[in-house]
């Protein structure tokens, strides 16, 4: 019996961890956005029930927590391309797989948390628009501030993912 066939090749797990990273980015960002858009949708529906003329304004506020899901999808897509699942070679060392997983985590975690908090800010802004429609511009700023941190996480994830390929590990 060939002993070497019994030794587990840890590098086979590289692609598994890399894919896990891509999935987490899309999954957690998507969950956060689904919760966020759901919350803001309820608030928007409440305002439109009483005053249908505010539909346009509250719709924009409703959509703000939806961006984290898009960022997560983008990170997932870039990762899949980089690790060779969407064409090319899918050979990765364990170290690289773990690096891809780590690179995806900022978007995954910040996406989930920021979407929920942005939704809370957007719900408050919808209440503001309900009472003072002329303050729509200002009401957009409050939830948009939360977006900053989702964008920062997106940036660091993208920079990391696109740089890992050049590393010799």
């Amino acid at each position, binding site marked *: 019996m060939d002993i070497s066939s019994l030794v587990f090749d840890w590098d086979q797990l590289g692609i598994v961890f890399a894919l896990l990273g891509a999935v987490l980015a899309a999954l957690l960002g998507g969950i956060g956005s689904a919760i966020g858009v759901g*919350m803001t949708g*309820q*608030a*928007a*529906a*409440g*305002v439109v*029930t*009483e*005053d249908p003329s505010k539909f346009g304004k509250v719709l924009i506020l409703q959509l703000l927590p939806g961006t984290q899901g898009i960022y997560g999808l983008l990170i997932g897509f870039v990762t899949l391309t980089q690790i060779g699942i969407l064409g090319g070679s899918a050979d990765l060392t364990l170290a690289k797989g773990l690096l891809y997983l780590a690179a995806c985590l900022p978007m995954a975690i910040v996406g989930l948390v920021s979407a929920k908090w942005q939704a*809370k800010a957007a*719900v*408050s802004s*919808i*209440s503001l628009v*309900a*009472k003072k429609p002329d303050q729509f511009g200002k009401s957009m700023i409050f939830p948009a501030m939360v977006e900053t941190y989702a964008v920062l996480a997106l940036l660091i994830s993208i920079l990391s993912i696109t740089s890992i390929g050049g590393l010799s590990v």
Partner: protein
Amino acid sequence: MSDDYIYAVARVRSKELSLLGRQDIDQLMACRGFDECLRVLNDKGWGGGSAASAEGLLAQEEEKTWAFIRELTDDLTPFAVLLFPIDYNNLKAAVKCVVTDVKPQNVFLPGGSIDPQLMARCVRENDFSPLPPAMAAAADEAYHTLLHTGDGQLCDVILDRACLEGILDCGKSSKNELLERYAQLRVAVADIKTAVRACKTGKSRSFIDAALAPCSTLDVGSLAAAACKSPEDIYGYLAVTPYGAAGEKLKDSYSAFEKWCDDQVMDLIKEQKSNPFTVGPLFAYVLARQNEISTVRIILSGKLNELDDGMIRERLRDMYV
């Protein structure tokens, strides 16, 4: 769950735009008479144009508020704090009607959480099990007390105290800070009113002890002791509690004290204007509407009786918006 009320709170925010503000109150005050006041209120959508009288108009507005709340939520449990007084008032009426063998006619208040006819049947059959346990126990005690002593006031004291204890329990179990603080304020104010009335009518210590509901912001023992002495002792005791201003208002007049009570409620709920979650804003909206209705009632009755504007204005409550 705080997130359960997102839709409801957003609707309430839109509805708050139609609440009467200080300018609306000034407009009503500027009306030359009662009829003009009614016209202004009708223009603002009050009564829907079908109310025959001022009381009818105000009753319609109260009903509109509860219809709106029922539309927003099926669970009225958090509002039990506001519904208990109606239920216990109906229970009093049911007990007295049965004991005095009078057919209940126009004695029940609408809008309670329990059907008054069910209450009347429970009292008639001497079976209070269909009522909530605390209410059933109080109803049983009040019914047998009235039956054996014929003392209507004692019956009222038993039910009023049960009502206040119910309000406190409801506030505590709601896990909502606003409801809890409102329940505390409501019970404390009721205790102060009871102590003042008991003091002025020379009630015994045992009667006062039975009437005052325990409350964490007031020591009812000290309040009862002060009520046995003089109104000044009550004011003196209140001065060392969070209700020191109540004593000052009571020294001025009873109507100033009542205005202070309502203004305290408005101060309590005002922070809900910036809360987009929880049942708090819904609760605040109901209280704001009740305050609005009460203010309009003061203006209408003042105009109807051709009272001096200054006299009406000193009774006007702070508004929510």
